[in-house]
């Protein structure tokens, strides 16, 4: 196995066009990440249609830069306003905002971007070295295993991302159901076409934008008149060099954060929120200054931020090899890969054309970390104004861009209607505790699940004289995947019960 193949494609990143995309993506990503009303998942979803007209490598570079930067940018509002820009920054807010209150916001932001950089680089290295062997292993997956992998992806996201296992699974099933609507090229039939607008089915990107962007538009409108906390100014006395020496003197926090972040990233569906919180918790346990945690301890920021950015790279490992995203934003990125005709699996690392695209994309993530550090440190000095963007302007801009993006995918007005309808339903469903991520995953993995189900049924029917279902439950790998599905559901039920007991 060639481990250093990534070096061959590094030069592709260093073209003026790609560097400009990285710069623009990082800049916009940090600002969008810092805006408390906008999640990284939504920002990446909204960007996908605009990458549609680019070369696959260029589009993915832009999406990757945005993904990296939004996770780091979310720390700005966590520190200055105590409202995490993204769930990934919840742990950062615990000590970050306390530091800002003590007049050390500038230091906190420095620590943030520096540790994000270290974690991010570590994560991409893990991505580079772990993806090829896992891709090779994925070759062992046959029809039934691929079916179970799709179900597993939805189950894990449904149990982790939702407040209730039942609602999470229902959201996943709803997504799978949406994927069956419209023209099915394999079966050659139109299904559930209640109106002509549904003939083309629900396009993945249309679903992504509707489910992630529209609820945020409604949320911004609904909460417009609510009082918001004022942003503290980014003041402090520390120089860049002082911050740099502090961060690198906290080797323990950096390494625990990066390691835990990477591990959580590889786990399907877990995401930055869990990475940040687990790393914060574990670093606290082994710290010499435990009592200072939660009172403005910089070490807490170092642990949380190195972890949530270390999650970014590894969250792409299960995505690129098995089509299972390691985080909600990675799920959106999967949509980005698919519209560029890149279907995850071993083949993308073998075929010359996709190989070049994928390795250029992975290499660009390293450069994106460097850009994130430089732009982040620069923006952190002037970050107060970002918080002042009024919600009404944000809401209408997101909506207009959502309509534009949706339409541009297939020049179809039906897509605009579907996007708006899905988004409105999702907004009200989220009020009842349903989550958008399992729905999206259902739409993405639906065709994989159904096609492999029908194929498996055909093979199983022939092999087991009609008892086709036996084919789905025999063989060690199938049993392992089913067991993980069941375990993740049981874990979800257990953790919900536990939280109810404590209520």
């Amino acid at each position, binding site marked *: 196995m060639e481990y250093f193949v990534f070096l061959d494609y590094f030069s592709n990143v260093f073209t003026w066009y790609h560097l400009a995309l990285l710069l623009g993506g990082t800049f916009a990503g940090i600002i969008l990440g810092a805006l408390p009303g906008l999640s990284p998942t939504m920002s990446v979803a909204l960007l996908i249609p*605009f990458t549609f*007209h680019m070369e696959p490598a260029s589009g993915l570079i832009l999406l990757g830069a945005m993904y990296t930067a939004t996770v780091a940018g979310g720390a700005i509002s966590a520190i200055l306003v105590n409202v995490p820009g993204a769930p990934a920054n919840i*742990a950062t807010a615990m000590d970050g905002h306390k530091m800002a209150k003590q007049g050390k916001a500038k230091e906190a932001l420095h620590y943030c971007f520096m540790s994000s950089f270290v974690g991010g680089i570590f994560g991409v290295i893990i991505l580079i070295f772990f993806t090829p062997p896992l891709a090779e292993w994925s070759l062992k997956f046959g029809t039934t295993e691929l079916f179970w992998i799709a179900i597993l992806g939805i189950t894990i996201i449904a149990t982790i991302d939702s*407040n*209730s296992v*039942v609602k999470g*699974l*229902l959201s996943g*099933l*709803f997504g*799978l*159901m949406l994927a*069956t609507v419209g023209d*099915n090229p394999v*079966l050659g039939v139109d*299904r*559930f076409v209640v109106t002509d607008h549904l003939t083309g089915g629900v396009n993945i990107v249309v679903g992504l934008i509707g489910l992630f962007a529209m609820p945020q*538009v*409604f949320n911004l*409108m*609904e909460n*417009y*008149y609510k009082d918001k906390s004022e942003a503290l100014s980014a003041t402090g006395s520390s120089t860049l060099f002082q911050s740099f020496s502090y961060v690198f003197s906290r080797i323990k926090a950096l390494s625990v954060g990066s390691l835990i972040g990477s591990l959580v990233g590889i786990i399907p569906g877990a995401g930055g929120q869990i990475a940040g*919180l687990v790393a*914060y*918790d574990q670093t*606290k346990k082994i710290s010499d200054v435990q009592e200072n945690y939660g009172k403005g301890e910089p070490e807490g920021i170092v642990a949380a931020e190195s972890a949530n950015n270390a999650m970014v790279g590894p969250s792409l490992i299960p995505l690129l090899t098995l089509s299972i995203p390691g985080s909600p934003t990675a799920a959106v990125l999967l949509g980005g890969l698919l519209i560029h005709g890149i279907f995850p699996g071993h083949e993308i690392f073998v075929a010359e054309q996709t190989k070049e695209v994928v390795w250029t994309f992975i290499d660009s993530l390293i450069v994106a970390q460097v850009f994130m550090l430089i732009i982040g440190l620069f923006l952190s000095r002037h970050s107060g104004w970002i918080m002042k963007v*009024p*919600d*009404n*302007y944000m*809401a*209408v*801009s997101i*909506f*207009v861009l959502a*309509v*534009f993006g949706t*339409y*541009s995918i297939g*020049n179809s*007005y039906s897509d*605009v209607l579907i996007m*708006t309808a899905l988004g*409105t339903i999702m907004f009200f469903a989220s*009020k*009842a*505790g*349903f989550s958008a991520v399992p729905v999206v995953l259902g739409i993405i993995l639906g065709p994989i*699940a*159904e096609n492999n189900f*029908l194929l498996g*049924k055909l093979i199983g029917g022939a092999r087991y004289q009609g008892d086709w279902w036996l084919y789905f439950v025999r063989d060690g790998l199938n049993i392992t995947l089913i067991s993980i599905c069941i375990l993740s559901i049981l874990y979800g039920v257990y*953790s*919900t019960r*536990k*939280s*109810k007991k*404590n*209520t």
Partner: protein
Amino acid sequence: MVFIQLENQRKIHSMKPQFKISSLIVTLFAVALLVASFDEVFNPNPWTENEDYLFPRFLACGIALLSILLYFEKDISKKTSFKQLLPGLILIVIYVFVVKTVGFYVTSLIMFFSVVMIYHKREESTDFWRVCVVKLGVSVVFTVVLYLLFTELLNVYPPKGLFL
């Protein structure tokens, strides 16, 4: 620690019990799907061996089963403040139905201006005309930038109606 964080989030969500309208909607939805999968309008030969609707039928059964469990779940619905939401919702509905006929850029300009005018905080400014001019200016700049960036630079064309 992690658990406490996640649990706190769940607690926030589980404070206001409400009528379980969501469970009812989900059950009705599942039943409708099952009925549709056997309906001859969609599926010409529903009772034969064809597999066109097999997978959706399994899914509908799954949804129906889980919707029953939903009745035993503690309701965690959050209230919607329709008073704030309604103007925006109405504008969005009008926009979606008008955009095709009028054209994307003109409709978007009107939409942008209407939203920022309707969602207006008292403390922004007391001078109505000044607010109007500033907001109209921002709306025009936003639309023009969108046009230059996408249509002129990237050659991406939005819905074109009577106007641009």
